[in-house]
């Protein structure tokens, strides 16, 4: 036990002597939370629309004014020919083209039926989906106006949909993103600090000197693990505080649960880092491997795209993705107010995960070869 204490003392001295350490600890969470939460939004504002009005009638102008009135759209140009608009789409000046055909009003009046054409730039698929949905809702609105005009009274659809968005009533994107970004933050700190550490001792050669001492493997690993565990826990607390103060993140559940799960989650992440560190020989190798896992785990974690929409095999892969567990837990606890019993399956998965990875890391660390 005393040996671990001395190793810890040495590790902490080294960590705080490292001049880049304090900026990493304090600047990184602030920058990540502020930049990512505000910038990485799924809401679309300023959709650049190019309108080709070939009808030029009161009805077509009424429709255009609907788009004018929307805060999501900015009309960049009007054209008489589709070719001109198409050119804007090709040169990225427009995101979407709305074409109102000739005889739009006449068809609408005489046949009760008319069509418009929407051409959307789908380089970014999810953006295209959003544009489609927004446009659809505007046209739907326009439709009900026509019905009212034609029949003189407000026509009710037979089936009405009344949506209410539970756990995020305003559909505030930040409420959804910030807990995930907190997980990202803790993961980066834990994974990279631990992955670079043991291998650094290998690179400098100090591991030779350590290996000839009677230090036990578990003592050495514990000495490496505990400081980063504290740093990562501190990061989570610091990040939560920023989230609460700046984003007024709703905290419905018990923060204690988040920290309890985080305690185990960080052990798992540190375990992966140490595992990478023990099987590599240079910091460069460790860096690449850590990045590989980081990116795969992160993109599959449900931070950006819902896990439920992934193919079945991808959902199966998430069984070994610690980030997915913790993101689920932190969202459930913070946004939904879930109690400990609700997140027990995730908690136990993480316990098993942490235990397995750490055992493997201690086993694979060889004091002689």
């Amino acid at each position, binding site marked *: 036990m*005393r*040996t671990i204490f*001395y*190793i810890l*003392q*040495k590790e902490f*001295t*080294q960590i705080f*002597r*490292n001049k880049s350490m304090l900026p990493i600890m304090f600047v990184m969470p602030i920058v990540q939370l502020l930049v990512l939460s505000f910038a990485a939004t799924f809401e679309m504002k300023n959709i650049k629309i190019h309108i080709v009005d070939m009808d030029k009638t009161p009805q077509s102008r009424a429709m255009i004014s609907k788009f004018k009135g929307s805060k999501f759209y900015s009309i960049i140009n009007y054209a008489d020919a589709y070719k001109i608009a198409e050119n804007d789409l090709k040169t990225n000046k427009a995101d979407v083209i709305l074409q109102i055909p000739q005889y739009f009003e006449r068809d609408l009046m005489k046949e009760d039926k008319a069509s418009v054409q929407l051409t959307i730039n789908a380089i970014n698929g999810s953006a295209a989906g959003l544009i489609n949905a927004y446009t659809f809702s505007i046209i739907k609105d326009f439709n009900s106006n026509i019905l009212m005009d034609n029949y003189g009274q407000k026509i009710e659809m037979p089936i009405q949909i009344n949506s209410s968005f539970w756990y995020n009533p305003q559909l505030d994107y930040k409420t959804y993103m910030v807990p995930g970004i907190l997980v990202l933050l803790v993961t980066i700190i834990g994974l990279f600090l631990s992955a670079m550490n043991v291998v650094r001792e290998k690179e*400098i*050669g*100090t*591991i*030779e*000197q350590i*290996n*000839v*001492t*009677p*230090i036990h493997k578990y003592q050495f690993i514990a000495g490496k693990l505990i400081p980063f565990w504290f740093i990562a826990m501190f990061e989570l607390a610091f990040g939560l505080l920023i989230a609460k103060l700046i984003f007024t993140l709703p905290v419905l559940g018990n923060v204690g649960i988040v920290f309890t799960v985080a305690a185990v989650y960080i052990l798992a992440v540190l375990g992966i880092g140490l595992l990478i560190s023990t099987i590599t020989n240079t910091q460069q190798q460790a860096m690449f491997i850590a990045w590989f896992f980081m990116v795969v785990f992160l993109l599959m974690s449900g931070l950006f795209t819902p896990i439920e929409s992934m193919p079945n095999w991808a959902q199966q892969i998430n069984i070994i993705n610690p980030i997915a567990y913790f993101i689920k837990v932190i969202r459930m606890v913070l946004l939904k107010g879930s109690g400990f019993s609700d997140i027990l399956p995730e908690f136990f998965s993480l316990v098993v995960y942490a235990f397995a990875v750490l055992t493997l890391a201690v086993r694979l660390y060889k*004091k*002689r*070869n």
Partner: protein
Amino acid sequence: MSEIAISVNNLSKKYGDITAINNLSFEINKGELFGFIGPDGAGKTTLFRILCTLLLPDTGSASLCSFDAVKDYKKIRNIIGYMPGKFSLYQDLSVEENLSFFATIFGTTLEENYDLIRDIYIQIEPFKTRQAGKLSGGMKQKLALCCAMIHKPEVLVLDEPTTGVDAVSRKEFWEMLRKLKESGITIIVSTPYMDEASLCDRVALIQGGNIMSTDTPENIISQFDTALYAVKTHSMYQMMLDLKDWNQTETAYLFGQYMHLTIKDKDNNTIEAYLKSKSHKDIEIKQITPNIEDAFMRLMSK
């Protein structure tokens, strides 16, 4: 016969197809200052890493203070001090922090064994708050030696401690080793510098993974069984080429301003005659007593 500190039997280690050490056997007495002399790549570091329990041998056995290097590695780690060839202390920790860290992980303190390292430590004590990475090469070596000694080891294993260190520091370092030896510690040291061999009690010449000879420096010199000449002419380079071509030449190598030469013929007049025939001027030939380096060069060329 004194007590055996290190005993090695038929020890071999291969890296893939390359034989690092080949069937080595030797014994080192307790309290001996034993040197391994050999060029880079001779297998010195591999041998030392096996003795330090960092590397497992392919075949053969090694024991330190009657502990087996493979089975009793935990016990060995308590009784050896190892100084790797590459400086491997924490560069971002100060002199004092490095020392007390290594002291504490061996369950001792700087104060407890201060007497053992005092002579060395007082030389670096003025810089004890300086980070190890900012020390000069010679001071790094002294610190590394202190750290290797701090737990009062019975065997000290020093892998090329003087490589890359200036001549004065090298001399000081060897003086420190002689003093340490007086306190009864067994010291094994490797070096590529042949002149350091004469400072050891016994030396082993190691080349290509094999031990060529093991003896006291005096005996190794006395094994030099032929006349040695120092030769000099107006054109040293041309002379070197000419002597290498000569069918009478046994060994010829540059040594300071002279070329050291042994010949098959017993008559040294033939040298002058040969060099004259190659139109050399200012020819100077004298017979000299061989030193340890000459002895090694001769052994290695055999």
